[in-house]
């Protein structure tokens, strides 16, 4: 017996998707949020005000760093830019590193609250908080599964190509399937790029064998050999006072980088040695690669020194994939496009999971354990994750500012809420669990900006005064998410009777949802699945 090719593909699609679907959903959603990594961090550290770069900034920083003593090996100045508002100084003696934050015209010191900020989502989406327990391997396997599901999906939803642009709106399961296929097809380039680049970024972890075969040090040695560095500094050079007026260098930078002279970071190596150097790094804007673009100057005279040698083609390709994955180059418009694609992919995964369950529930009379597990994991994986993310923001605002291990506690809150939501989903009927978790999430989203204002009214006033679109945008996004969740919950409340009214309503809701699809695709999915359930109920009524 020769198995039919298409049937095999459908099987593959169904079970690769199901097995790691929840994990993939979590990875994609948190990964999508980390496109706004800096913006989220900005909201989570309200002590830092938004500021523009001003001319004195670098000179003030240099003076402050000089005061840290002459035995320091390295200085680093992070300057605020379009997306982040951190003006941070770091200095390093041997292995010991210290840092402080500055703000204002004259550079007063501030202490922002301890938090991982948006970085938490970024690290979570590839380490799953299990860095030392193989988290990155699990994420890599998930990426491979996603690729498999993507390719087999093309064969599974083959019929969709024949009537492209079709969204059947009569039955909700059909709409959902159409949506799933459509979202799948339009996000093929995005998902392909994301999954492939994810694998390429950690290629040394996932395929270490060839490097281990040829080099003693394995991938680490390979990396050292293919990456280009600045020449090593010889120790024991004579004492020289570093420059205190940066304008010498600023003029040269503006000349050498006429098209994008925004400086992002300045590193000074061996500031008090005669061979010390200043490395100026600009914001990434013009190239897809994630290799930093630097200029090098002498630390005491400001004379230009030799820059970084170019890398080889293979390395450049990896750099480009890396850059594409992270989207450093993306300006606000493009960043939103990435974000939308990310949400669409998350919705694709979520809708797939929901379809799996309801296709089967329709056919079977007797549910078995598998259905129960999938149903509960759907609730905890989709609604629970949303709750956990919002809970993380709440922890940021509500935990006392000077508590020990604060950043850890915020992450603890995220994981704890997720766990509670899983328990809750286990002990409640599925309908009620969906309803309660989503309405709680909606309420939480709507209340968070209010709490923020009550806690410290001056923050919002300052954001408005300074036209800080990032801060205001975050609050607006919370409100929009909250409203969408509220709409979803309301749609769930429609009773399974009064069939006709409901169908009209369904259409309205769906149209609205679809209009705001970039806002919260995942919620739409849960909504649709609810509607589907209602529909099934009404069908039963008719029968």
């Amino acid at each position, binding site marked *: 017996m020769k198995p039919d090719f298409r049937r095999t593909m459908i099987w593959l699609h169904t079970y690769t998707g199901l097995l790691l679907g929840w994990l993939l959903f979590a990875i994609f959603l948190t990964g999508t949020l980390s496109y706004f990594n800096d913006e989220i961090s900005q909201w989570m550290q309200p002590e830092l005000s938004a500021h523009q770069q001003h001319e004195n900034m670098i000179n003030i920083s240099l003076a402050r760093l000089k005061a840290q003593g002459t035995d320091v090996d390295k200085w680093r100045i992070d300057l605020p830019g379009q997306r982040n508002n951190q003006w941070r100084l770091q200095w390093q003696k041997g292995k010991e590193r210290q840092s402080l934050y500055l703000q204002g015209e004259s550079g007063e010191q501030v202490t922002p609250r301890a938090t991982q900020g948006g970085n938490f989502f970024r690290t979570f989406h590839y380490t799953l908080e299990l860095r030392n327990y193989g988290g990155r391997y699990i994420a890599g396997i998930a990426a491979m599964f996603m690729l498999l599901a993507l390719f087999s999906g093309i064969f599974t939803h083959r019929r969709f190509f024949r009537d492209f*642009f079709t969204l059947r709106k009569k039955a909700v399961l059909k709409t959902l399937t159409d949506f799933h296929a459509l979202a799948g097809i339009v996000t093929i380039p995005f998902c392909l790029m994301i999954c492939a680049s994810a694998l390429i970024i950690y290629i040394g972890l996932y395929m270490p064998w060839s490097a281990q075969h040829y080099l003693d040090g394995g991938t680490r040695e390979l990396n050292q050999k293919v990456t280009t560095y600045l020449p090593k500094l010889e120790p024991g050079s004579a004492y020289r006072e570093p420059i205190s007026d940066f304008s010498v260098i600023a003029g040269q930078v503006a000349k050498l980088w006429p098209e994008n002279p925004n400086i992002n970071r300045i590193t000074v190596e061996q500031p008090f040695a005669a061979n010390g150097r200043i490395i100026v790094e600009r914001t990434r804007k013009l190239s897809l690669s994630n290799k930093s673009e630097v200029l090098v100057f002498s630390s005491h005279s400001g004379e230009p020194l030799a820059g970084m040698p170019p890398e080889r083609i293979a390395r450049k390709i990896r750099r480009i994939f890396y850059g594409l994955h992270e989207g450093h180059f993306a300006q606000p418009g493009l960043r939103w*496009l990435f974000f939308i*694609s990310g949400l669409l992919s998350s919705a694709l995964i979520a809708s797939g999971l929901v379809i799996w369950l309801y296709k089967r529930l329709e056919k079977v009379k007797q549910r078995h354990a598998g259905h129960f597990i999938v149903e509960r994991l759907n609730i905890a994986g989709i609604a629970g994750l949303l709750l956990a993310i919002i809970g993380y923001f709440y922890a940021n605002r509500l935990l006392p500012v000077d508590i020990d291990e604060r950043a850890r506690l915020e992450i603890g809150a995220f994981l704890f809420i997720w766990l509670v939501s899983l328990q809750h989903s286990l002990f409640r009927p599925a309908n009620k669990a969906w309803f309660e978790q989503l309405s709680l999430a909606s309420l939480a989203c709507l209340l968070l900006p209010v709490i923020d204002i009550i806690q410290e009214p001056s923050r919002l006033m300052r954001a408005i005064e300074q036209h800080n679109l990032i801060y205001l945008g975050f609050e607006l996004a919370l409100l929009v998410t909250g409203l969408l969740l509220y709409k979803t919950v309301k749609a769930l409340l429609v009773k399974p009777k009064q069939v006709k009214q409901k169908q009209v309503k369904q259409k309205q809701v769906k149209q609205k949802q679809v209009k705001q699809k970039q806002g919260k695709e995942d919620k739409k999915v849960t909504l649709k699945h609810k509607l589907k359930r209602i529909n099934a109920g009404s069908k039963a009524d008719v029968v």
Partner: protein
Amino acid sequence: MLFSFLIQVIAIAMLALGMNKHFKNVFNRPVKPLHSKGLKLTGWLLLVFSYYLAVSVLGAPMATVYWLLLLPLSIFYMALLAN
């Protein structure tokens, strides 16, 4: 870039109209085979043209990123209109 996006949307619309089902939705009559072919051809040509336009503004690497990320938007938009 905006211009390129507009042309992309129009191209997708042409492709959708080239399909009998969607043509019937809009004009209430089945599409003639010749029309269908013409619509599809112009659709594909316009699609290529919109990509070319993007490349001419932004250069190939960045243009590809933009173009591929805008494509889902135009397809979704069309799918919502077509039904």
